[in-house]
């Protein structure tokens, strides 16, 4: 589905719906009818910051650009002069890799201006309402007020599950890991059917179960773009309720599900919930996928379901010697 934009006012209005939150003091790159990613970053105010941002986005945009690729640059800041400088600099940089800048806008809380033509206008309720209605049809959730509030939405009351963890671990030790894995998969599938929030005891049992890497992987490999909304809901709830000792797995799964659904900001917020004293391989891998703007379809293409009669790339990798399967060179961010 294509979002139709009729004027700069609507272009500014669509940004929170695409990002999942209302950005402040940011620069946003919006592809125009192409396969490029949307990107937002804090407004880089120094030459060094701008160089850093460019090095981060250049490869991602260069990889997915095609002849005729174009984008709009929108600087959201109270400082219009800074927006003009930064906007023109990035337009020139994109031009150097063959991407045309079709519109360059500045916007503050209430106004917008075209930095090429000088045209100005007010941001209107009419534009916001039309865009909100159009994005509802795409199934997107309403945006959070700020990026901070998006991050805060992943922190809930963690005491109830924390109190249940000792007895839950004791009960899990009475069962085999395979049995707990089967229960976890069945519980996930039940949530996909009914969408009912897990009880504290089920949440504790699931969080203990996904400490087992094979169990976590079974739930991870259940994700696809058809059911990812349900996975985002499930792992958001688990991340909100998980005490530190069991939060690495659900937060990483939420990061992956967010990335698979195209929601890079939520993915970063989820990865921030992985306790810093618990290095976790999946979290690092998802961070690298988000950082390099890897397209989710690359994962889906590699992870073909077995029922299609083909070996998945995961099976292929599993048969390769570990020395060949690992990265030959440092993965970005590692």
């Amino acid at each position, binding site marked *: *589905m*294509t979002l*139709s*934009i*009729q*004027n700069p006012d609507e*272009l500014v209005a*669509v940004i929170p719906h*695409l*990002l*999942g939150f209302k950005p402040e003091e940011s620069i946003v790159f919006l*592809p*125009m*009818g192409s396969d490029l*990613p*949307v*990107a*937002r*970053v*804090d407004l880089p105010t120094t030459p060094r*910051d701008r160089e*850093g*941002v460019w*090095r981060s986005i250049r*490869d991602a945009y260069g*990889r997915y650009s095609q002849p005729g690729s174009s984008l709009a640059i929108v600087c959201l800041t109270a400082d219009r002069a800074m927006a003009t400088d930064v906007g023109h600099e990035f337009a020139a940089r994109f031009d150097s890799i063959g991407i045309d800048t*079709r*519109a360059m806008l500045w916007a503050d809380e209430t106004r917008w201006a075209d930095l090429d033509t000088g045209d100005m206008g007010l941001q209107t309720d009419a534009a916001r309402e039309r865009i909100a209605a159009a994005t509802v049809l*795409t199934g997107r959730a309403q945006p959070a007020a700020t990026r901070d509030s998006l991050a805060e939405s992943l922190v809930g009351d963690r005491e109830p599950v924390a109190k249940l963890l000792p007895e839950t671990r004791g009960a899990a030790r009475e069962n085999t890991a395979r049995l707990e894995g089967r229960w976890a998969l069945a519980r996930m599938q039940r949530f996909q059917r009914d969408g009912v929030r897990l009880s504290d005891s089920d949440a504790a049992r699931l969080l203990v179960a996904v400490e087992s*890497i*094979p169990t976590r*992987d079974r739930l*991870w490999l259940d994700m696809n773009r058809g059911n990812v909304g349900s996975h985002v809901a499930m792992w958001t709830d688990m991340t909100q309720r998980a005490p530190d000792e069991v939060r690495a797995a659900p937060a990483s799964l939420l990061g992956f599900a967010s990335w698979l659904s*195209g929601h*890079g900001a939520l993915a*970063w917020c989820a990865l*921030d919930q*992985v306790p*810093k004293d618990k*290095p976790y391989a*999946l979290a690092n*891998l998802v961070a*690298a996928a*988000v950082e*390099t*703007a*890897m397209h*989710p379809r690359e994962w889906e293409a*590699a*992870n073909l379901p077995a029922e299609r009669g083909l070996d*998945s*790339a*995961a099976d292929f*990798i*599993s048969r390769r010697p570990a020395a060949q399967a*690992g*990265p030959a*060179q440092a*993965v*970005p961010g590692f």
Partner: protein
Amino acid sequence: MDITYRRPRPASRPERLLAWLLRLRPTTTSVAARIDFVRAEPVEVTQA
């Protein structure tokens, strides 16, 4: 988050698949700037 990769290599099969896909990508220098990349519906201007 700390994205230093402290384990020698990904442990499980899907972790190795994801690492393998990432291996195909050019290595860039990690910078402090955090970019929110979003895959969204295409935006088209239908009227100037």
